[in-house]
């Protein structure tokens, strides 16, 4: 099957910040994104777990965004403006997709 190279951006970010990031995505003109729950973790600021939590503070979410390689840098810039002040991080990797025009 014919595939096309794209970039996958993975972001782990504090839950309360979710709306800010997705607004940035809209600004950067990505075709879409998906949010996955994270239930526990550890980082430099310590360990945490969603279990029993009444509020979202201190909890993380994972965002996945497939973008065209050409757009990746612009998206990273937008995203990083939010992430750098908050708890979280961003990774970039290579993927292939089947329908190129979607992204």
């Amino acid at each position, binding site marked *: 099957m014919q595939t096309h190279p794209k970039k996958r951006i993975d972001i782990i970010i*504090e839950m*309360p*910040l979710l709306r*800010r990031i997705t607004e940035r995505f809209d600004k950067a003109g990505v075709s879409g994104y998906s949010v996955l729950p994270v*239930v526990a973790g550890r980082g430099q*600021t*310590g*360990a*945490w*777990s*969603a*279990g*029993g*939590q*009444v*509020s*979202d*503070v*201190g909890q993380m979410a994972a965002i996945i965004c497939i973008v065209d390689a050409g757009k990746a840098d612009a998206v990273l810039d937008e995203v990083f403006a939010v992430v750098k*002040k*908050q708890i979280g991080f961003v990774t970039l990797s290579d993927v292939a997709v089947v329908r190129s025009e979607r992204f």
Partner: protein
Amino acid sequence: MSAGVVATRCGAVSLPWGNRMTLTDLALQNLISPMVLFFVVGLFAAFAKSDLTVPEPVAKLLSLYLLMSIGFRGGAEVAHHGITTQLLGSLAAGVAMSFSIPLLAFVILKRTSRLNPVDAAAVAGHYGSISAVTFAAVTGALNQLTLPFEGYMVAVAAAMETPAIMSALNLARPYRDLSASETGHSVWREVMLNGSVVILLGAFLVGMITGQKGLTTVKPFLVDLFPGFLCIFLLDMGLVAGRGLQHGRKYLTTSLGIFAIVMPLMGAAVAAALSLLIGLSAGGTAVLMTLAASASYIAVPAALRLALPEANPAIPLTMSLGVTFPFNLLLGIPLYISVANTLAKAAH
């Protein structure tokens, strides 16, 4: 909840346990209530590293239920008694405390702790605001003692949630790199429309509009189940507080630990004085003291992650949930009730 107490002078209410119950009795009776004991079970399980957990969506349901129940009952109560000058006075007192307690807290923290100013402002904001579950606990204790209190105190609680956030931001402003901060407008929107604030006020309004008739419809759910739901909620709070203490131990210096116990006492003292001024009943005084003594762990942390991202959220949460909440639940509440009762009697 209360009946008839708002209209009469408070001292006139004959307290069923009036002279007979000492502070120790009261503390003991509080400690052996199912709610407090389930909190202790949760604390124990957390420290023993048990895998006992209340699933997160269930914890969120319990919190939603608590706010709905508190709000609705408070609204129905106000519908019954109407809006009085005492109500307005209590609201004003609450808002004033929520604004000013952070200032006091900030000054103390700057002198006694080594927190940077932004973190100190964040902690101060938590202590100016209130904790809904602590409010629930004091009303539960008062109900068990059949000591009535003014039903509109839930409106006071709601009014105290957010001014403290404004104070905290003002305190932090001189120390921030403001170029990097978000515009104030959208932050205020998000703060005022925090889910817990909306549901508390929404349920209060629904209670006010539908009154006693509405309350009758939902009583089996919103009233009768309250103690049971509070048991599970406090079990969860025990688990979360215990685990939070373990993870956040490193932030809890001696001075911050002391602050987390002394600050509630100072808040309660301020509230006691204001209660005398307003002429609150013994029960109402106990509630206002508890509100002032309690520290937020939902609305304020959420708001500050957005409005003050430089602050480390783990510091105030460890203090509020790990120290102040257990202190209030186990010792503070009986103390405040006892003091409130003494004051109410002395006022005659």
